[in-house]
């Protein structure tokens, strides 16, 4: 009996919606600078799938001597993800031919829609160079990964700008909340051992 409930609760829903809208109008946007902390995370034992359809044991992303940078995005995202991905593009441009000196990883938070085909097209649209992988997986595994990085969100439309940087062999990750300028991102990556 979902419909009558919907109709009855319509005014309550409108009130809540009005309040939420007012509050969101006050908050308006994310902070103008980014927040940087050092955090320790344990990588979960799950297998994800990359843009070529290959299965990737998630823990294997640490099997390298390069800095690893990770963010959470989805293929049809409209606001946060394009800016995060523009950051990846800018970093790869700054690195020139050495784009594989850093392993950039984007993890889908819309795994049901982000098939390898969608992810491959996304990377193509952003003119991604080698060294940038887009990973998807079962909803359960993706939730596990989000929780492992204290980044779980139940609804993809309420996600936020988060970049995680792992310097080679370090025991902690640099957690960056907010949007970095291109030069700030490059500087953070250099600090992480580029």
């Amino acid at each position: 009996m979902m419909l009558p409930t919907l109709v009855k609760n319509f005014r309550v829903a409108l009130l809540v919606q009005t309040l939420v809208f007012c509050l969101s109008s006050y908050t308006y946007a994310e902070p103008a600078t980014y927040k940087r902390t050092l955090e320790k995370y344990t990588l979960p034992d799950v297998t994800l799938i990359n843009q070529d359809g290959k299965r990737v044991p998630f823990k294997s992303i640490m099997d390298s001597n390069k800095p690893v940078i990770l963010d959470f995005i989805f293929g049809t995202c409209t606001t946060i993800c394009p800016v995060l991905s523009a950051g990846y593009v800018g970093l790869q441009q700054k690195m020139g031919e050495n784009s594989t000196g850093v392993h950039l990883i984007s993890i889908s938070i819309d795994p049901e829609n982000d098939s390898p085909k969608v992810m491959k097209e996304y990377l193509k649209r952003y003119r991604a160079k080698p060294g940038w992988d887009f990973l998807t997986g079962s909803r359960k595994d993706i939730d596990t990964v989000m929780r492992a990085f204290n980044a779980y969100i139940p609804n993809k439309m309420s996600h936020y700008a988060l970049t995680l940087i792992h310097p080679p062999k370090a025991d902690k990750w640099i957690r960056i909340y907010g949007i970095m300028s291109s030069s700030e991102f490059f500087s953070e990556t250099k600090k992480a051992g580029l």
Partner: protein
Amino acid sequence: MMRILLCILVCFAASLATICVASAADSPDQYRLGERMYRDGLLSDGTALKGYVRGDLEADGTIFSCSNCHTRSGLGSVEGQVTSPQINGASLFKPRYLFKDQIKNTVSKSKGVIRKAPALRPAYTEETLAAVLRGGIDPTGRELAPVMPRYNLNDKDMRIMVEYLQNLSAVFSPGVTDTSLTFATIVTDDVSPEDRQAMLASLETLVTINQQTKTQRKQPQFAKMFRMLDTAFFRNISINTWELKGDPATWNAQLDAYYQKEPVFAILGGISNKPWQPIHDYCESRQIPCLFPITDLPVISNTGWYTYYASKGYFQEGETAARFLNSSIRDNAGKKVLQIVRSTPQGEALASGFASAWNENEAGRGTLATINLGKDQKLDTPALQQLLLQHTPDSVVIWSGDDTISALAGMPSQSNLPQIFVSSRYVGKTFAAIPERMRDKLFITYPFRLPEDEKKFKGYNEFLTLGKLKQPDKKRIATRTFSMIHIFLQGMKELKLDYYRDTLLDVIGMRPDQYLPDFERYSFGPGQRYASKGCYIVQLDQSQTPQLIKRSDWVLF
């Protein structure tokens, strides 16, 4: 004197130039240039619009256009902590208030109170709008959020952009008056009276509920604020039934005749056993939203905008079979797959989905041979045995109707039978005829929630159809219509008072997952047009009335 004359001439020339530019900008070509800049991030000379985030982070317009955040209709969005405000003509060139103040001012005005709540910002002018697009500072001196790029636009492109925004969502879409909202639904002449009734009964209930609110509207206990907002829902809803007859090639003209007679805001549902393509094309050309029609033969498109489908139908089942095979033979490339395809829209849609997903896995897939069966060509046991002998496949995919079961049931008992894949929807509900000895070889694509999990949704359709259905809703027509109505009502709530068709599509695209009858999940996302993304691979157990056993996740890669 000469100086004055010169001034007059210069002024005249300047105003003439302005008039020329303005009239050019008003032309359809100029509007399309603005639309291309807004939606695709391409400047008038075809190069990419460039913007910068936080000073030096380049945002290329071709991958990050205005419509990305502010949406196609310009009504804005809220994603995470970022609010992208309304930037349509009706909003930009008027003062902006907090939503609560806007309501307060409207209510005060109706009471004759003159004291207005202050505006967040004054109305933009062309100059202040150009300044904020370039520098990110609004007329009050406030800096826009850092996520909003600052754009390099020359004067010519700025004028195109400003004029596009002036005209964007400036007037309500057709089908809306101060007191009414007109919709349509579509029924084609191949649909049985029972199926037709299963869909229409639910829509009739929606109209009945809407009519009941007429009484509520008169009750004084509702605050004026809510009465004003309620018009978003409490306008009088009517749903016309557009009957399409004969050759699908004539449907476009029939649809246009209906539309000319009475324009509608959107098409709710609709039902046909034939491919939805002509209706899809009509909706695209007329820019009319069509919400969740009952079709298993939708148009598969990455660019379609106006039709929301519940799923990709048969195509999705074909995709799932190929992904299951690809993942199971991933480490065993070289295995042989035989695909038998009946030349019907259903068979071809299944094969098309299969081909699409089969080609995704370039590295590890096996070899695929396809045999086409004529529409009336018989598939019996001898014919099937002959094909298996000829091709010796490791797996066989049969995209045919209920003849598949009798052909399989007659197969002799042997241990070296290949894996067999069939479509549950195409084959129909005749699986009990599959002998027990065959069941461990048979894999079935099943695009719905499994029956034992579906029990909690029992009764949903009965409520909306109010017991008007004489037969059980075996084809899930009433339940799928129920889901359409549920999502439509959520969209209408989000629409508030902004009666723009693109906004309705935008707000539905931002809905969180919905757990409704039939499919495991309806999930959404900006621009996504197929809500249910999954399909199970199931097998039959060994009982007399076989139960389904899951052999895969809901979504396969």
